[in-house]
């Protein structure tokens, strides 16, 4: 069995096993172990990969995504193990639901990996649908009124999104059929990209609009973002971490694949400006929305919209430098945002609430957790010397050289967002201690591991990694 099939088979088998195993301690450990195994297998893809098949393939682009996904998947499973302990204690989850939760976690990993390695645009669509379904169920797992409403909203908006994406996929097939020929080949991505120059440009254009709206809903681009804050706020925090850190990326990856198709066709419309517009609107809109948030998870969900906007903007600008910046920003954002959600999960457990007004003086009552959160917010706000500063700096400077006005708007959004985040952070982390302050028995390893990587990346990046990212950036055109 090749490594590519293994990263699909391992989570799928684990999901089946986790669904039947009793005892949450064992299942939580098994969940971690499987996630680690998947990550190690994904790492091995760096050293050798099988040739592309009709259904699966790995190239430089998705290799980055796969490794990032499986890594965050692993660290989140470590965080999840200490998180659910507490949820069981206070009775928010029952052992039966927990079994379901672990099985769903692995199904989600399977679906995301499948979406990433799929060489067939139909399979990719099915995988993203599966990922949507599993996250819907995880968001609703607490079964409170709010959680169910959030799940329902996510469900309906997500379904409309993937329905539009399917229409776009069908149009791509229609566009490809005359030059690739009928049948399976016209949906195989590696075949499509080879022949893309001969496709009917008008059909490609319309298809991309549908794909942008469809997968853009899943990326959380404004004005299609309405599901995202609710889904982040009401579900279990490990799921918020996976949603923000990974699932949004997977949807963006799908979009990038289609962008490459359009870029390969000289007569098709340039996909860049559309993505730039949506990305910029998302970033500015989300930055302003940060001010009125009273729920801590909801606030960081809006911050995710802002950063997905910046990433989409960077990829929309295109060119080696902007693509490089976009890739770097995506990686840094995944690591930082999931670290923040790890912290937020413990904060909400310690304080017994998600309302910002009921939290205060966290650095006094729980120093490790409090300073961890501060560090995370400093990182996500884009202050030097952390990794996000580097990537945002690159996005801004590469834009300044080409479209100074757009860069000004972007800098404006970043600054507004920074101020909004610090305003709230001040309430949460400093000042008089407010609200209950139980000891947290949590493991801080995943959070600090992520933050350490982000910190190091801000100062030094290994030359191999830089070369790799540069190759991918060239691939993206």
């Amino acid at each position, binding site marked *: 069995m090749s490594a590519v099939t293994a990263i699909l088979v391992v989570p799928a088998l684990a999901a089946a096993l986790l669904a039947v195993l009793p005892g949450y301690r064992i299942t939580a450990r098994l969940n971690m172990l499987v996630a680690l195994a998947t990550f190690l297998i994904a790492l091995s893809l760096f050293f050798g990969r099988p040739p592309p098949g009709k259904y699966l393939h790995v190239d430089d682009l998705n290799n980055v995504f796969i490794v990032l996904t499986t890594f965050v998947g692993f660290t989140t499973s470590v965080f999840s193990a200490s998180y659910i302990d507490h949820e069981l204690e206070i009775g928010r989850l029952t052992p039966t639901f927990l079994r379901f939760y672990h099985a769903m976690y692995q199904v989600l990993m399977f679906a995301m990996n499948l979406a990433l390695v799929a060489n067939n645009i139909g399979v990719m669509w099915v995988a993203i649908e599966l990922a949507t379904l599993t996250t819907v169920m995880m968001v609703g797992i607490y079964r409170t009124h709010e959680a169910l409403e959030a799940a329902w909203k996510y469900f309906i908006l997500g379904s409309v999104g993937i329905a539009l994406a399917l229409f776009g996929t069908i149009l791509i097939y*229609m566009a490809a059929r005359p030059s690739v020929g009928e049948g399976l080949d016209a949906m195989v991505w590696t075949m499509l990209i080879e022949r893309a120059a001969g496709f009917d440009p008008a059909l490609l254009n319309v298809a991309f609009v549908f794909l942008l709206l469809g997968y853009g809903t899943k990326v959380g681009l404004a004005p299609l973002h309405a599901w995202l804050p609710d889904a982040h706020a009401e579900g279990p925090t490990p799921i918020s971490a996976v949603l923000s850190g990974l699932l949004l990326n997977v949807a963006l990856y799908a979009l990038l694949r289609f962008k490459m198709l359009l870029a390969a066709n000289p007569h098709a419309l340039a996909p860049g400006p559309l993505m730039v517009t949506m990305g910029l609107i998302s970033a500015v809109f989300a930055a302003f929305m940060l001010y009125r948030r009273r729920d801590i998870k909801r606030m960081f969900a809006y911050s995710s919209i802002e950063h997905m906007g910046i990433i989409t903007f960077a990829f929309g600008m295109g060119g080696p430098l902007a693509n490089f910046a976009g890739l770097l920003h995506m990686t840094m954002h995944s690591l930082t945002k999931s670290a923040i959600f790890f912290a937020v999960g413990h904060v909400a457990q310690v304080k017994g609430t998600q309302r910002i007004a009921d939290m205060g003086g966290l650095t006094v009552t729980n120093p490790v957790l409090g300073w961890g959160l501060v560090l995370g917010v400093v990182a996500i706000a884009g202050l030097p010397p952390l990794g996000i500063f580097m990537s945002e700096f690159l996005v801004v400077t590469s834009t300044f050289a080409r479209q100074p006005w757009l860069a000004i708007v972007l800098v404006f959004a970043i600054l507004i967002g920074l101020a909004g985040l610090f305003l709230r952070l001040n309430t949460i982390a400093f000042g008089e201690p407010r609200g209950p302050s139980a000891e947290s028995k949590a493991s801080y390893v995943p959070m600090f591991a992520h933050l350490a990587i982000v910190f190091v990346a801000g100062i030094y990046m290994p030359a191999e990694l830089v070369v790799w990212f540069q190759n991918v950036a060239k691939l993206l055109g």
Partner: protein
Amino acid sequence: MRGITFDIAHLLAGSLVLVSFLQLYQDRLYALLNMFALHAVVLALSVAWQAYVQGAPHLYLTAMIALVFKAIVIPVVLHRIIVRLGIHREIEKVVGVGTAMLLGMGLVALSMVVMLRVTEGAGALAREDLAFALSVVLLGLLMMVTRRNAVGQVVGFMSLENGLVLAATGAKGMPLVVEISIAFSILIAFIVIGIFLFRIRERFDTVDLQALDRFRGERQ
């Protein structure tokens, strides 16, 4: 491709758009479910005709799924759920019938203009099919945004999805159509189970603004 084959395909796809309009102005849930069943039957016929024309036997399976699952099972189950949960039988709408119909006509015109212009290279049958399919998709979206009831929205989503199946079968030789229609059926089954399990009665008619604020976590 011209001649009787084309005419029948055209007729069936056109009827699908017509039935979408019929769904648009229903104001009682039972009538809406009946209309949806009719929609599914027309879809099944249309897919079966495509299967015959294209000589693609696997499409008969898609037609069967449409007929059994969407025209019979889903309407019956939803009917039961409405009775069991005591859901309001009236459909609450955001806009009036006249406005909805005008908007619907606008959307159909839009999809004709867009699709017929961009598909000049494709065969006549595929062109018409795609234009009609996009109309059905957009009408489904319109239904979803103009309905406040959960069941009404689900029916809107299902008719949207019928449009997608029409588009997929119209694209000659498209692989994975059967798999995709099965994936969609699973999705719909989940939605219906979701309504039942979670007892989402009329999700979007919460007029209590305070409840909404609480839900958004924005209350001080």
